[in-house]
Structures are given as C-alpha cells and as structure tokens.
C-alpha cells in the first residue's frame, strides 16, 4: 500500500483527534481519525504507525458485515504524489484500502469520517509538518479514469438502498398515522373517565391501562400507577417476589434497583423488562402483600428491600458497627457487610438522619462517628 507514510503517531500542532477505534484491521490495530490524517497504529507494536493525509481520499463506502465477516469501510485513494515521504511500500497496484472493524464501531467512524471529509478542516489549518497532497495534472488525469467506474457503482447502490429505505419509510409513516389515531382516541377516553370516574368500573380502568401499555402511551388519567397497575405488572411483581428472595438475603436485605434490573434481565435472556416495567411492578409489592418493598432514598437512589429487614434493625446494626470501629467511611462499611458502596452510604446517611451518627466531611472522605451530642 504505497500511499502510507511512516509516522511517529503524534498529533501535529493544530491537528485534533476526532475519533479512534480499536480492533480495526489492516493487521490488528487501532485506527485514529484526526482533522488532517487517517492514522493506523499496530496494537502489539506501538512503534509501528502509518498515516494517510485525508486529502488523499477520493471517497469511501461501507461494506456491511456478513456471516463470519466483520463490517468494513473501503477507502479509495488518489495516486501517490511524487514527493511523498517514505512508507511501508513504494509501489502498490491497489488504489484503495479496507478497514475491517473486528470490534465494531464502524457506524460512528463512518459518520465522523464523513464529517471530516465534508468540513475539510485540514485546508484551513495546515499542520506544521508538510503533508503531501495530491496535485498536478498527471494525477488529475489518472484520477478521472478511476473515478468514473467507482461513481457509477455508488450511484447504482444508492438507488437500490434508496428504494428499500423509502419503501420502509413510507410504510412507517402509514403506520404512524394509525398509531396517532389510537393516541387521540385514548385521550378522549381518558377525559371521559376523569369527568365521571364513578361510572367506570375498576376492571374497565385496568383494561384501559393495559391498552395504553400495549401502545406505549403515557397514562393521561393518573400520573401514578401506584396501587392499581395492570395485570401484567401484578404478575411481574409476584415473579419478582419469588426470584429476589435469595439474592436479597445474600446482600444484606437490600439491592439497588439498577442491580435488580441487570439480575432479572440477565436471567431472562429475552423478552426483557423495560426499566419502567420494573419500577411499576415494584410499586405493587405492598398492595399484593408481598414481603418486599420499593424504597426511594433522599438522594433519589431506588432500592428493593426485604420487609423482614426493618428500619430500626438496620440503623441499630449500623450504629453498632460504627461504635465498634470508632468510625467508618461508606467504603469501609461496605466491605464489612458485603454491600455495595452506594447502599452502605445510604444506610449510614439514614442512621445520621435519625440522629444516631454524625459526620466528619473533609476532602479525605466522608466519615461517620457515633453521635454523642
């Protein structure tokens, strides 16, 4: 590949790093895009680094991934200029290179490359080291011949893609019109319900809520679903009640909602719960008399806790631990109980709120002491 030039891989003055992507292959390496150049650095041997000025790029296109093949970006280049600095090859019969994205990232890389090639920032701020650009009528003539064939190919491909996309968009638009009708209907029903709540049965309200759930329409009647969610959420709540008993016991009776989300969804594998599904199900624990509770701390952290682990017990044990050690930070407390630092901190804050602990807040950290006042 004779367009490349050896480079020390450092950015020149005025050059800014735009995006870098690991796993991009010429061989296995990291490809970096700057405002002036495309740089490739070998992942194993960091000294090996080659670059191409962006001005050498005629155009580039994506090649979708296939079975056993990574997605690629193919970059077509101008012929090398005569005064180019030394590089890995002196001559090459190819006028393009392929970047193979073994660790993905091609969507963003393609987008940024498009941006840089449109903005052509290298023309405004020349980098301090002279970068060879394609010039001269000789280069121009060979360029014309190569380009025509390439351009024809893009045009065909674009027409084909356009056709597929425009059909998809058309169908999508028609679908959205129908969806909009549903939204309007649901709003008019909601206003009727609000006016004369007594005439609609509890069952019908629940039915209405499940319709809204199916369509993804926000409930316009009550912002909260507390106390009477849909049957789906009730079912979910019971499942969670079973599923979370053991994990909660192991973790001192409390888990952050994000932890629960990951645990449950990893176990499901598919037909995952949305964050809102989880929250709405947890809100039903109390109504369904399940032994779990959803709790929101002052900081906004949401947790699921076992009902058996009462507040007083938690605070008392926090006080014991702190008294025993003289003082504790959230990290130390977390290690002691095998809790996450986040939840350990919440317990200490709770005990402080109840007046059993007081704090020493410095840049070295937040430390809690028994409250002797």
């Amino acid at each position, binding site marked *: 590949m004779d367009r490349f030039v050896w480079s020390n891989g450092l950015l020149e003055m005025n050059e800014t790093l735009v995006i870098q992507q690991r796993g991009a292959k010429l061989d296995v390496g990291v490809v970096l895009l700057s405002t002036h150049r495309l740089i490739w650095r070998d992942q194993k041997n960091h000294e090996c680094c080659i670059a191409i000025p962006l001005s050498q790029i005629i155009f580039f296109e994506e090649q979708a991934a296939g079975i056993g093949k990574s997605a690629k970006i193919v970059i077509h280049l101008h012929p090398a200029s005569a005064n180019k600095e030394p590089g890995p090859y002196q001559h090459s019969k190819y006028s393009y290179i392929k970047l193979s994205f073994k660790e993905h990232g091609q969507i963003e890389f393609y987008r940024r490359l498009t941006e840089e090639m449109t903005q052509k920032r290298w023309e405004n701020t020349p980098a301090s080291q002279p970068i060879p650009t394609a010039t001269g009528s000789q280069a121009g003539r060979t360029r014309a011949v190569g380009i025509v064939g390439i351009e024809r190919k893009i045009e065909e491909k674009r027409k084909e893609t356009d056709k597929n996309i425009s059909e998809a968009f058309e169908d999508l638009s028609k679908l959205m019109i129908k*969806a909009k009708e549903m939204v309007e209907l649901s709003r008019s029903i909601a206003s009727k319900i609000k006016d004369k709540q007594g005439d609609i049965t509890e069952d019908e309200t629940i039915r209405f809520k499940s319709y809204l759930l199916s369509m993804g329409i926000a409930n316009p009647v009550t912002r909260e679903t507390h106390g009477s969610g849909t049957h789906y959420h009730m079912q979910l709540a019971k499942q969670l009640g079973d599923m979370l008993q053991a994990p909660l016991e192991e973790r001192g009776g409390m888990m952050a909602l994000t932890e629960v989300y990951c645990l449950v*969804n990893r176990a499901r594998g*598919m037909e995952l719960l949305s964050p809102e599904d989880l*929250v709405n199900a947890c809100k039903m624990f109390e109504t369904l008399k399940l032994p779990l509770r959803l709790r929101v701390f002052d900081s906004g952290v949401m947790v699921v806790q076992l009902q058996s682990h009462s507040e007083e017990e938690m605070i008392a044990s926090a006080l014991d631990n702190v008294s025993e050690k003289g003082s504790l930070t959230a990290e130390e407390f977390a290690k002691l109980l095998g809790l996450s630092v986040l939840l350990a901190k919440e317990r200490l804050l709770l005990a402080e709120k109840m007046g059993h602990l007081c704090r020493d807040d410095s840049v*070295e950290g937040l430390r809690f002491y028994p409250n002797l006042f």
Partner: protein
Amino acid sequence: MHRRGVGAGAIAKKKLAEMSKQLETFKTHLEEFASKHKQEIRKNSQFRVQFQEMCATIGVDPLASGKGFWSEMLGVGDFYYELGVQIIEVCLALKHRNGGLITLDELHQRVLKGRGKFAQDVSQDDLVRAIKKLKAMGNGFGMIPVGGSYLVQSVPAELNMDHTVVLQLAEKKGYVTVMEIKDSLKWERERACHVLDHLLKEGLAWLDSQADGEPQYWLPALFSELSSRDVTPEEANQMTP
C-alpha cells in the same frame, strides 16, 4: 345531573370497546410492518432514529414496556433494554476509577468491546436513548454536555451549574487549576475551591499537589486512551489523599 352522569359513562364504555377493536387492527398492521421491515430496524441505526422520532412526535413511547406491541413485534425493546444492562455494568466496573462520570465516547468503546464481535453494532444515539430509559430507576443517570459530546453520570452526586461549567473547562486538558477557573470564569477563589472540593469528595476529581506551579485537579472521566492505563480498585484507594 344524574342523566348526564349516565351519558358520560356510557360513552366512555362505548369508546373503550372501540379502542379494543382498533387495537386489534393496529396489531395486525404492526405485524405486517414487522414482517417486512424488522431487519431494517435492527441493522440500520438511521432508521432507528427516524422511528424513535416519529413515535415521539405522535406521543408514543415504544420503549415504555417490554409488553408493548412495539417491543414484542419489532423487537426494539430487547435491543435497548439489553443495552441498558451493558451500560450499567460498564459504569459500575469503572466507578472506582472515575467516580461515576464517563465520557460518552469511552462508554461507547467499552460497551462495544463487551458486546463482542458477533453482536449488532450500536451507535451513540442508541446509547443515549437507552440511558434516558434508565433514568426511571433512580440512581442518578444523567448526561452533561461537555466539549461537543457528553459526560454520562451514573451516581446520584449532585452536580449543579457551577460543577458542570468547571467540568467543561477541564475537558480540553483533562485537568483544571484554581487559577484557570479564576481567569476563564472570573470567579472568586473561594467559589472555585468550593466546587473543586465537592468534585474531590464525590470521587470525580483527583488532586495532583506535586504538579509544577499550581495544584492540578484531574478528572479521570476525561482521561483518553492515549494518555492513561487502567487502574485497579486497590491502586485507586491508595491514590486518594
């Protein structure tokens, strides 16, 4: 009064029945759409963006529930909910190092790496949408605009305008000093120190008091791959003053 009451109730019941019927019809249309274009949504990130924006315009959230039609038939739900899991896990794994603040770029890189070679590619727009959904679960997921992109916050640390502005100032070099804050933002020394102290306490900034000249406040979230190596939790504990 009584008559009006009965009338309104009856109309509502009738509309409810109508909605039920229309829902069935809609489901059929969606199934048809899915059979033709499900692949398009999976593979084409631009199409996903269009789809999401159109839904938002008409007042529909296709990601509200895994039980929704959109999720069940188009499979959009699983794509974003799984992404949510991956985002949470990456943020959790790096919290000891960056205090719960990470650039969208780095998050993107790490999520891609975790997904492996055979998984569907994801764009930054996909990440942003997944993060917006995560906010429902408390825990302070948020996005702070910085230097043309975003910092993703995954802890409930309170960050007000002052903190955000200092983060933005630090973005260029990865660190900031009290002098720089006073010069650029025209703040008093006390205000600058107050903000920097808060960032230190929350674990978002590290203090380099041995730097030439003024002490430097570094933000691990802004370290780029070019100038850092990974730190283990033990090392991180030793580094805090």
